[in-house]
């Protein structure tokens, strides 16, 4: 009797969040997939049904792969996918180059200062993402703070065009995603046993060698977690390239959004999303493996 009540309670605790996520996270992808196979129509909603029913019988199945064919033939999409992957990869490396020394510095600071530094990393994370990107617009514009300072100092005579360049996009992304790189790295580095480095030094390793042979290999899970936390969402990034990026080279998130809002072509937008998801399946699975390992190790 008690055992049955226990099982029922257990089922409920699993079932409620599971049900929510199945309905609102997994099912949408299936619908997305279905619509990506249909045809655009001038209607509400603006797509044709896949299945035609008459007298309770299926009379027709309309599957259109044209949307996908589009994605591979139209250079707009191909270059947008390529550009997005490139931006994501470069930004990830930049975040790592800046974030690793910071995480290391925080992890090796005295405990009292460590909390303060960590708070300084997390603080921007709690403030509006949109407003932080916006803050850069004030700095990067032709009549923005940076150009004004450089003009005033006589370094340049005419303002440098920084807005609407790749540079601005990288800057905005690194700026916004840096905490996502630092936090998992810090979590990893903070757990390292200090005596390992002492042992390495005792065995004759110079600090650089000790770092390369001990600290760096041990921090690989942290590096991977941070890299995936940056790379995956950046592939689909929409706000930063829209506000800071080039008008002539769109990222795929922007393309999706334009197809959906401006062209009202839901099937193509769905196909764009599906292909993006397909590209990201491997990194997402890798991220989940990493999360699982981390929680099992504890």
């Amino acid at each position: 009797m008690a055992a049955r009540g226990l099982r029922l309670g257990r089922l409920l605790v699993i079932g409620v969040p599971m049900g929510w996520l199945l309905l609102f996270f997994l099912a949408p992808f299936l619908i997305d997939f279905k619509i990506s196979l249909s045809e655009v129509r001038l209607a509400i909603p603006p797509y044709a049904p896949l299945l035609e029913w008459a007298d309770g019988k299926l009379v027709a199945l309309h599957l259109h792969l044209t949307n996908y064919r589009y994605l591979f033939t139209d250079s707009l999409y191909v270059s947008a996918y390529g550009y997005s992957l490139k931006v994501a990869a470069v930004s990830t490396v930049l975040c790592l180059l800046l974030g690793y020394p910071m995480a290391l510095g925080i992890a090796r600071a005295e405990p009292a200062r460590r909390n303060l530094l960590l708070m300084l990393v997390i603080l921007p994370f709690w403030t509006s993402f949109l407003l932080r990107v916006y803050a850069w617009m004030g700095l990067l514009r032709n009549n923005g703070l940076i150009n004004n300072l450089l003009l005033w100092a006589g370094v340049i005579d005419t303002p440098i065009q920084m807005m609407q360049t790749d540079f601005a996009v990288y800057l905005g992304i690194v700026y916004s995603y840096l905490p996502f790189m630092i936090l998992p790295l810090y979590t990893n580095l903070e757990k390292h046993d200090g005596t390992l480095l002492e042992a390495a030094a005792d065995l004759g390793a110079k600090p650089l060698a000790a770092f390369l042979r001990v600290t760096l290999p041990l921090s690989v899970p942290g590096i991977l977690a941070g890299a995936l936390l940056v790379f995956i969402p950046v592939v689909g990034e929409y706000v930063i390239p829209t506000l800071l990026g080039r008008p002539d080279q769109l990222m795929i998130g922007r393309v999706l959004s334009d197809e959906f809002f401006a062209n009202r072509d839901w099937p193509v937008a769905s196909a764009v999303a599906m292909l993006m998801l397909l590209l990201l399946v491997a990194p997402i699975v890798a991220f989940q493996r990493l999360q699982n390992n981390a929680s099992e190790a504890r």
Partner: protein
Amino acid sequence: MTAADNGAAIAPLSAAQPCVRIEGVTKRFGEFTAVDDVSLDIQEGEIFCLLGGSGCGKTTLLRMLAGFEQPTAGRILIDGQDMADIAPYERPVNMMFQSYALFPHMTVQANVAFGLEQEKLPKTQIAQRVEAMLSLVRLDGMAQRKPHQLSGGQRQRVALARSLVKRPRLLLLDEPLGALDRKLREHTQFELLGLQKQLGVTFVVVTHDQEEAMTLANRIGVMDRGRIVQVGSPRDIYEYPSTRFVADFIGSVNLFEGRLTEDEADYVRVACPELPAPVLVDHGVSAAPEATVWVAIRPEKIQLLRERPEAADNLAQGTVRDVAYMGDMSIYLVVLPGGRELRVTRANLQRKEEEVFQSGDAVWLVWDAASPVVGTG
């Protein structure tokens, strides 16, 4: 029925009904068999120790008694009642966890009162019983502290008080002294014994520490790879190990392989290739003649002599290779001509005595026919 009712209401049990009966219990986790067909009776009022190395299944067995794990096969009966469908919170059993598992957000008082509150006892009664229990474990004045404000020894006593205050039929203790330092352990061991005598609760103790098992237990069950290999009093287990594993696991021992050459009802002779003379043992063994057997001799049962004694059996000659002075005794490593090394201990009875035997000395080793143990398993 609550645990408190149980403690008071049940009349003295007949010897026929044990406090705990474990019948053919097996527990598998996937492919791994943690507990393998264990049967065991534990009597009212006894302290029973499950002793074994890590992964031998002792903790799994304990957790099945508490109800946190369900046996894959077999039954567990407490006071004759099958525990199969009884949830942990309904069993007349309490457990003292290895980590103590004190609730960090509650005071000592609240920790100890927690179990009584679950029985919906009146507040005044709870307060009285908590107070009495805290004073029993010498924690008066600590009631309002939180666990992290206590020392290791005090935490251990809170954990004990918390599990005893419900007056369980059976108290399960998982490595009860494991987290204490050496000095404190010895003291606490005797305290635990006193408390058990005073309250008359049946204890089942899990430990990997044989000293702990020896001092606490009335009976010890030695476990190996999910099975109970021997059950007996501490003395039985030490002096009459029934298997080679038990002989080797408990205390230190000199073990030899040998062949039965004479097999009578009241004595046997064993020829061991590593020993020059046959081993004479004053008890019989159930084995075929010429069977291969093991012989175990404890280090403290071997005598060291300078001169050759008058004996034909239980005798060897060797050279002292190393002496380790341990304070109360010394350990001698003696090498036999065949290369086999024997361990011999000798009490240091006198304070000023120099080591009688030095490294490099030639010595004779002898032992009594009553000392060796022979077995086949």
